[in-house]
C-alpha cells in the first residue's frame, strides 16, 4: 500500500510569493510527523494543499492513496482535519457540534449516538458536552476540535498548530491525547508546529520548513546528532581559568560561553566527559560546575537556516 502521505515537488505560488517551494514528503503508516517552522514558513499552505483546501500550483500529492487534486472527494473521506483557527460556533454545544460533524461525514444518527459520547470521553469533555462552546477554555476548544476531527475514524489526521496559544498544562494534555491516539488506534498524524518542544515530544520524524522549503528532515535524535557534538560547559575557580581552558580546548573545539565558563564541543560521545574531567583533575584544577548540553532542535534549526526559532538560550 502507498504511504498515507506522499508529496512530490508540491508547490504553491501566491502572485510573486512562492509559499511552498517544491517539497517532497513521504510519511509512513502510523507515524507522527512533525512539520516545524516559523510563522509564515509555508506550513499552513502545505497543510491546506494536503487537505484539499487549496489547489497546488505545481507538483502532486497523495493522501491516503488518493490524489489531492483529482481525487479530492476521496481524500476528504479519509482525513481528519483540525485547523489552526478552530472554526467552532460559540452558540452550539460540544455535543451538537459533534453531531453536526457526524452529519457532514455521512454518519448515521444511530452511529453518531454511540460515537459522540465516546469521543467526548476520549478528550475529557463529557461533563462539558452540553455546555455552549462559548463557555469553553482555549484548551477545551482544542480538545473538542480534536474530537471533531476524529468523528469518522480518519486514517490520517492533520493538526495545524494544535497548541498555539495554549497554556503549558493544556498543551501537555493535548500532547498526551495525540500520543494515545497514535498508539491505540494507529492513526497517522501530520502535525505542524512552531514549537520545538512540541515536535521533539510528539514526532517520530520531523521536517523543518523555512521560506517554503524543507531544509532538514529526519528523526529528532538523528537531526540533533547531525548538527554536531554535544556541548560541555565547565565552571572553574578564576585562578584556574586559563590553564583549564588550555586543557579543555586541546580535547575539543572551543564553543562560545559566558564569562568565567569554558565550553567545548565534545566529540566521542558522553564517555569523553570522564576524559576531560580526568585531565582537569591531573592539573589539580577544582571544577565547580559541569553541564552537558545535547544540541536542541533549535540548534538544528539554526544550523539549517542561520536563524534561531525561539529566543536564544543561555550559553
Amino acid at each position, binding site marked *: 500500500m502507498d504511504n498515507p502521505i506522499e508529496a512530490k515537488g508540491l508547490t504553491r505560488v501566491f502572485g510573486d510569493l512562492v509559499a511552498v517551494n517544491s517539497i517532497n514528503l513521504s510519511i509512513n503508516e502510523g507515524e507522527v510527523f512533525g512539520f516545524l517552522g516559523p510563522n509564515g514558513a509555508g506550513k499552513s499552505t502545505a497543510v491546506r494543499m494536503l487537505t484539499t483546501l487549496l489547489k497546488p500550483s505545481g507538483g502532486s500529492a497523495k493522501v491516503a492513496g488518493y490524489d489531492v487534486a483529482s481525487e479530492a472527494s476521496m481524500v476528504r473521506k479519509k482525513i481528519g*482535519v483540525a485547523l489552526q*483557527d478552530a*472554526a467552532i460556533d460559540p452558540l452550539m454545544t460540544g455535543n451538537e457540534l459533534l453531531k453536526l460533524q457526524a452529519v457532514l*461525514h455521512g454518519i448515521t444518527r444511530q452511529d453518531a449516538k454511540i460515537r459522540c459520547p465516546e469521543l467526548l470521553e476520549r478528550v475529557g469533555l463529557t461533563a462539558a458536552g452540553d455546555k455552549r462552546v462559548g463557555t469553553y477554555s482555549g484548551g477545551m476548544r482544542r480538545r473538542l476540535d480534536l474530537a471533531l476531527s476524529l468523528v469518522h475514524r480518519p486514517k490520517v489526521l492533520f493538526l495545524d498548530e494544535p497548541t498555539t496559544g495554549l497554556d503549558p498544562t493544556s498543551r501537555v494534555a493535548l500532547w498526551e491525547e495525540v500520543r494515545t491516539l497514535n498508539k491505540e488506534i494507529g492513526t497517522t498524524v501530520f502535525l505542524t508546529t512552531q514549537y520545538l518542544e512540541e515536535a521533539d515530544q510528539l514526532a517520530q520524524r520531523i521536517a523543518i520548513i523555512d521560506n517554503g522549503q524543507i531544509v532538514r528532515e529526519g528523526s529528532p535524535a538523528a537531526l540533533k546528532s547531525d548538527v554536531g557534538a554535544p556541548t560541555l560547559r565547565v565552571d572553574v575557580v578564576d585562578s584556574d581559568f586559563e590553564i583549564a581552558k588550555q586543557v579543555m580546548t586541546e580535547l575539543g573545539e572551543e564553543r562560545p560561553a559566558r564569562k568565567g565558563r569554558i565550553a567545548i564541543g565534545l566529540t566521542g560521545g558522553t564517555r569523553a566527559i570522564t576524559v576531560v574531567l580526568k585531565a582537569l583533575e591531573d592539573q589539580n584544577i577544582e571544577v565547580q560546575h559541569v553541564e552537558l548540553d545535547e544540541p536542541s532542535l533549535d540548534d538544528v534549526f539554526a544550523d539549517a537556516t542561520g536563524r534561531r526559532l525561539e529566543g536564544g538560550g543561555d550559553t
Partner: protein
Amino acid sequence: MIRQPQAWAPTLFFPLLLAAVYSSQFSKAVSLPEFPYPDVTFLDFILPACVIQGVLFGSTNSATDLAGDIENAFMDRLLSSPVSRSSILIARLTSAFSYGLVQATILILVFFAFGAELSGGIRSALALILITSFLSMGVGSFLIAIALKTGSQEVVNSLFPVIFVFIFISSAFFPVELMDGWYGQIAEWNPLTWIIDWTRVITIEGFSWKVLLQAFSVIALISLAGIATSIRQLKRRLAMAS
C-alpha cells in the same frame, strides 16, 4: 434562531415600526385625487410593501451567516469534509427562502391583528407569502454571491442601506402615480415597484393567477441571475480556496 434573537428580531420589528409610523402619518394619502386605490385603508395599501420590506431586510441574514462561516473558517471545516460543494449554496438559498417564509407569515398575521384585510382571502395571503419568500431567495442569492466573493460580514451588512434605497425608490409606501420627475421615473423602472404593484393587485383587487405568474417570472429572472453569480463566485472561491 432561538439562540440569536438579535439576528432576526430587528428585521421583524423594524418594518412593523415603519408601518406604524407610515399608517399614522400618511393615512390621509388615500384621499389624494390620484391615489390608485381610493377605497382601501392606507394599512391595506402598505401591507404587501411592508411584508416585502421586512423579508428583504431579512434576506441579508443568510448571506451574513455565510460570510461569518468564511470569516471564522467554518467554511474550511465544511470544505475539508466530504459534503458536496453544491449543497453549500443550496443550503444558503433554502435558508433565505425559509427566513422569508417565516417572516412573511408573521408580518401578515400582525397586520391582520391590526385590522388589515386581504380581498383574495387565504389564497392572496399564500400568494403574498410565496412571492416574498422567493424574492427573499432571489435577492439573497446576490448577497450570497457578495458574501462568497468578499468573505466579509461587514461588506454584506453594509448592503443593508442599498436595499433600503431600492425599497424607497419604489411604489412601496407611495404610489408611483403620485411621484414627480426623475424620482418617479426611477421608481417606475425599479423591478421592486412591479413586484410590489402586482402583489398589491393580488391583495387589494383579489387573487389572480396571471398576476402571480407575472410576479414569479420577474423574480425567477432575478433569482437566475443571482444564483448564476453565486455559482461563479463559489467556483472561484473553491479554485482559490484560501
